[in-house]
């Protein structure tokens, strides 16, 4: 299984000549596409965190009717084909969609814009954020939260000072996964915004125009950039809480 994952990636990487890589890296539109991918993915991850973490906390800590249904809804994007997700999003965020029209009055368009790319990424990657954060909150000892209440903290203060820091590791993991999933997204993004081109879209375009050679060089470049940011975020995510972790 590991070989199945690694072999194609390694084969592709090592079949590139340095010259071809440099040539692709020198293309301004490729560089712009990669930059846009990273920017949009970062935004999508942050939005997912801002809205997903509170939801995750509610799912981890409260019992309410229909909780199972909410959990199923959270997982839904994992099961929806991404092109389908893109089309569905157009119905709401497109120029004639409900949100699209409202946003249009404020001068924001989700069609062919950074906002559109972020929306597409957010839809497909939000479950990773919510599920990772929920698991993390569930693993926080309830008694710590209870004791904090008896010591005078309100529920909001307990969340900020106890639950959130103790769940930080899982939340960061969720953030990294969300980011990685967002960078990789193609289907939903291409339907909402073919232009401006994100890196996967650009690579697809190169593949259609110039075949395997040029597109694979760009692919390796994207792989390289995303992997290094992924590794950097992972490092940042796992480094800090190890102080607490090592003492458990």
């Amino acid at each position: 299984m590991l070989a199945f994952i690694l072999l194609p990636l390694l084969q592709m990487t090592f079949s590139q000549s340095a010259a071809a890589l440099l040539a692709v890296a020198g293309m301004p539109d490729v560089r712009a596409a990669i930059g846009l991918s990273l920017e949009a993915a970062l935004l999508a991850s942050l939005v997912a965190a801002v809205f997903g973490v509170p939801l995750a906390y509610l799912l981890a800590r409260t019992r309410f009717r229909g909780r199972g249904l909410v959990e199923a809804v959270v997982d839904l994007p994992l099961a929806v084909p991404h092109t389908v997700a893109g089309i569905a999003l157009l119905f709401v965020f497109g120029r004639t969609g409900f949100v699209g029209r409202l946003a249009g009055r404020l001068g924001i368009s989700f069609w062919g814009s950074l906002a559109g790319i972020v929306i597409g990424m957010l839809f497909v990657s939000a479950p990773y954020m919510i599920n990772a954060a929920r698991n993390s909150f569930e693993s926080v000892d309830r008694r710590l939260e209870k004791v904090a209440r008896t010591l005078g903290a309100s529920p909001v203060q307990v969340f900020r000072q106890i639950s959130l820091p103790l769940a930080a590791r899982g939340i960061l993991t969720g953030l990294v996964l969300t980011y990685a999933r967002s960078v990789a997204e193609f289907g939903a993004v291409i339907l909402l915004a073919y232009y401006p081109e994100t890196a996967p879209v650009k690579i697809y375009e190169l593949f259609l125009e110039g075949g395997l050679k040029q597109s694979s060089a760009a692919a390796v470049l994207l792989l390289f950039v995303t992997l290094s940011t992924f590794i950097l975020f992972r490092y940042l995510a796992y480094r800090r809480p190890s102080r607490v972790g090592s003492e458990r």
Partner: protein
Amino acid sequence: MSFLEIENLSLTLHNFQLQNISLTLPRGKVLVVLGPSGSGKSVLLEAVAGFHRLERGSIRLDGREITFLPPEKRRLGFMFQDYALFPHRTVRQNIAFPRQFLRAENAEAEGEGIGVEQAVELLHLTNLVDRYPANLSGGEKQRVAMARALVCRPQLFLFDEPMSALDARAREELRQELHNLFRELNLTVVYVTHDQTEALALGDLIAVIHQGRLLQCGAREEVFRRPADPFVARFVGMENLLPGRVCRVDGDVVEVHLADMGVITARRRDGVAEGSEVLVGIRPEDIRIIPNRPAEDIPGRENILSAVVGEIYPAGMFYKVGTAGRTPLTVYLTGREMKEAALERGKTIWLGIPAADIHLLTI
């Protein structure tokens, strides 16, 4: 009016119910809530702390109605089983945690109260303030949790089975430490446990709970020596419960006929009349061994019964001696008493049971 007053407290939690619990506790006293696991004692404690909504009833603390207050407004110190120290904060940060929530009005009303440094000193934590909880022993954790709670200036301390995860030795040490702390700081405490030894060691008052109902609440001696029903009797270690019938009531003295042990005398108790069926309760440590045939027993003072030694079982600090026969008795003896009486299986001995130590349960 008592310091803590719980009146007709009822609540339902999933499939569990607490029914009509009423308890009172004077300031500076320790109430031990004793019950088997699943009896509802922890639910009761969490209800007092404000984690469960009551269906009926009220809770008053120092004349203040707290029934509907959220936990953070009740001014209680809650001590969980492993003390629930915040793992991401140092000992000092743990102890200082409640500081930020203290309101100015409270601080004024209560004078200066107790500061972080004072709490650290009081509980001998000076050398530990920069450690993380994971690097503390059980006793140290307990002290940190106490210090943290004290900074909050609670009016009432609640302990939820603090010792149940510890080994016997640590338990003994912590029990003693807690005992001293309670007295030293004159704390008012509700302490939940399933362990009668802890109840004896720490409780001024004892409440026994079973299946969500309060079976008995009273002074420690009262509950241990005069349990209200057979369940309480067994739970507080009154191991000998023998069915009998009252055959004579004479002033202060009652004669009870036991199935195959003849007649024994006990002190009179309310509700006991000639002819009533009773359970005769005797604590195993109240029976003494008489190696040689003594003179006649003194009616109304001490009962002398002959018995044959059955099983001898070493139970830690003492020996548990059973007698043979249809209604066996259990007697606790020290090693020294064992040696002096030269007990062995099958030997005939005499047992001395003071009439005042016999408790009659009406059934």
